[in-house]
């Protein structure tokens, strides 16, 4: 009897640790995908180049590794949980992680598809392909972004070394992962609630907000836009 209790305590502790791992991995995934988006924005523009594409591949592989590990662990977490009432709150936390991961996966997939499309449209295989790149005003590469990606740490990255697929297979793999997860574990995603109120994100980033006002002014450029929004119909 007591051994069963002790076992359950041990199990609970283990599960708690796993959840912590997943949360950290989720954050890491968020970092990697946002960097990926920053890189993808420059695709097809004058800042495009082989360096950019390589960096994108690296980022992608990293994201893939995080995704694989995360999906495996989440599946394990959520299929193991028994229907015992004492672990209802844990189940809720796990479900939240599940929903967040799937949303992140979906978001990343849409970015990947767009990137795939753009790379197909602007292949840089020949020299005069560069002529058709769009002059968007972005000059610099994305070195700092790449560095940010490199600094990401996820709990199991060092442990698991698997081969990295190319873009098409990557997309296919993620899609398969997504449908598998949705089919394997029935999670009612509408029952997950946000932990933050609307507008709560403004407060937390004071350090980052210095110099933001000047950025706004910069964006307006010359020819002040201080006048109120003009409400005219655009002509098409």
């Amino acid at each position, binding site marked *: 009897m007591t051994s069963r209790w002790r076992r359950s305590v041990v199990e609970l502790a283990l599960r708690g640790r796993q959840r912590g791992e997943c949360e950290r991995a989720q954050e890491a995934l968020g970092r990697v995908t946002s960097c990926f988006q920053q890189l993808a924005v420059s695709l097809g523009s004058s800042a495009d180049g082989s360096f950019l594409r390589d960096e994108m591949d690296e980022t992608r592989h990293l994201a893939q590794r995080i995704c694989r590990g995360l999906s495996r662990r989440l599946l394990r977490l959520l299929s193991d949980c028994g229907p015992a009432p004492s672990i209802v709150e844990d189940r809720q936390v796990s479900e939240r992680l599940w929903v967040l991961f799937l949303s992140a996966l979906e978001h990343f997939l849409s970015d990947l598809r*767009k990137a795939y499309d753009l790379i197909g449209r602007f292949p840089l295989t020949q020299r005069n392909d560069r002529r058709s790149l769009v002059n968007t*005003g972005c000059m610099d590469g*994305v070195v700092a972004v790449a560095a940010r990606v490199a600094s990401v740490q996820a709990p199991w990255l060092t442990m698991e070394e698997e081969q990295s697929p190319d873009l098409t297979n990557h997309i296919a793999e993620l899609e398969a992962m997504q449908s598998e997860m949705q089919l394997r574990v029935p999670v009612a995603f509408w029952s997950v609630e946000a932990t933050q109120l609307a507008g709560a994100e403004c407060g937390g980033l004071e350090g980052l907000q210095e110099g933001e006002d000047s950025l706004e002014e910069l964006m307006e450029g010359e020819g002040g836009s201080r006048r109120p929004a003009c409400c005219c119909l655009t002509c098409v």
Partner: protein
Amino acid sequence: MTIRSTLQDHGQRYRPRMACLKKSEKVLLEMQDPKTGLKSQPQRLVITTIPHAITGEDIIAWLADRFQVDTQEARSFGSMLVALGYIYPLQDHKRLVIKPDASLYRFQTPYFWPTQQWPVEDTDYAIYLAKRNIRKKGILEMHEQEHYNRLHKWMNHKWDFIVMQAKEQYRAAKERKKPDRVVFDCQERAYWVVHRPPPGTVSAMDYGLDRQIDPNSDEAVTPDVYVRIMIFTQQSIMRPRVKSSVSIGALVKYCATYNNHDPFLSNCLPSNPWITDDVTFWTLNMPCVEIPTKMRVERWTFSFAELLSDTRGRDDFRLFLKKEFSGENLAFWEACEDLKWGEAASIKEKAEHIYKTFLARGAPRWINIDGKTMEVTVKGLKHPHRYVLDPAQTHIYMLMKKDSYGRYQKSPVFKDTVKKAICPDEHRFSVAQLEQNSKKRRPSLSPIILRQMEQEQRAKMAANIDITQLCRFTTPVPHLAVYSGFNDYPTATASPSLTFLAHTPACPSPISVALDSTSVSERRVEEAEGDGNPAARAPVGVSKSRMALSLRRLLKGGYTPATMFASLSPKCHSAAGTSSRIQPISPDQPSQAPPRRIGNFFQIKVDIPPECRIYPIESEDEEEESRAAFRGGVGAKEIICPWESLTTQNGTG
């Protein structure tokens, strides 16, 4: 997180082909050519300079040159490129137009180009708004705030992800150099101006409904495709053809008629709400408005269908018909429409009511359709379906169109309406007033409320009909439906004094008996005699007394000799004769038909079958007599639908 179903459900979920996008992209790539493309200049900002800015006039000049068009057209083309989001303005970023001066624009990066395959996701917009919230420290524009609140509610389950991603994206963007960051922020902002336009503007990516077929997928060529092609070509061969002179002539006539009424081709008065944001036009043209506009009234004269389809026009027509005592035609037509478009569960019930009210022998609001149609209709009513009353309805529609419509247009009712119709002055708004108008836009009444109002109106109208169209001395029976209301009906009484009408027992006389007690008893006798027996009867005695009665009527006054004699004329005979044919196929026992009382009336036309009308009597004293007579009068007997009474009859007649 969205769950995508793999089942094919034939729903409409694909974005349509947007050919403009591919074509715009080609043009845009041509603009990038270092030799033949657009020349760019650096944009000087306070801290730095950003290259690749282009001026509006350069864009217009390049387009005009490339496509060999004039400046105006090049300008609209350029504005289209801006509206779609391929080029964005650096100053005045909310107005997506090309200004033909030195104002600066920049090309949008391909990541933010509009696509046909993938719709713009709300998740992305939520992340963008969260980022903006962070940057602006909670001060968003009003429409952005509304969107934010709505998305927070609907995406609550992934809100944590959204906030987390927003913060990460914010931090990632900060890693870039300042000019690039400025460019990226401008690009993102321009993207969302296109796809989530601020109020007062429309998005160029609006495409209407989703389609059923994915335009990006290739259609598999199966034998089914060829079968369909064959069927299509066979049908095209079999289609009847019209001479082009005829069809073009019809088109020309239509255009000429409707030219002034088309809001695209000519001005709406007072002003087009879609352009000036002033809704006077709509309020003046509401369906149940008291005084219509002149244009609306003019449209009623174009065709009968126009008159009927406009609610106000139909009301006017109904008023006219009421004055002419032929309101049952329109009521029948409306009842048929109700049957056609109503719920399936109520078809049987509605069909019965319509039969009882309009079609049965002795119905309170009997309509005049020819025998064949009546035959067909009653036969069909045994197994009623939605379109069972179509032939009858068409007949009545044609009747109204050929007859009443013409008279309506010459009637005082219509002339009065025309005189009272208003013609509002044209609005002339200044630019400032236009802006004011667009700020004051409010949503219209909810469709739920509109439907409730409509139902109330209909109920009110239904209640009204009984009172005005019935005899003033009949009491409406509550349990019968809207269109009926009588409980006292004279029997299929004997024919009038003319013996040659004797063989039509179903033909009551228009010169009806008075309503004193003697007549009641008389008619009870007739009732007994007149049992479904088409054999000749000679109720001479009765008719004599009736003749006497009618003379008395005449002498009392309030009764035109003309009408009386007219109804005695052979014409009436033929009408009566036809009406005798208008009997249901399955025998309708007249004994079961309730006693029918027909009032006297001024008859304007003489060829109307005698058994149809029951109208208020002109003279007062007759009314009182009748009221007294019938107060304690004959018990109410309903008209029974023939198919219902089949079982109970013992098959006479």
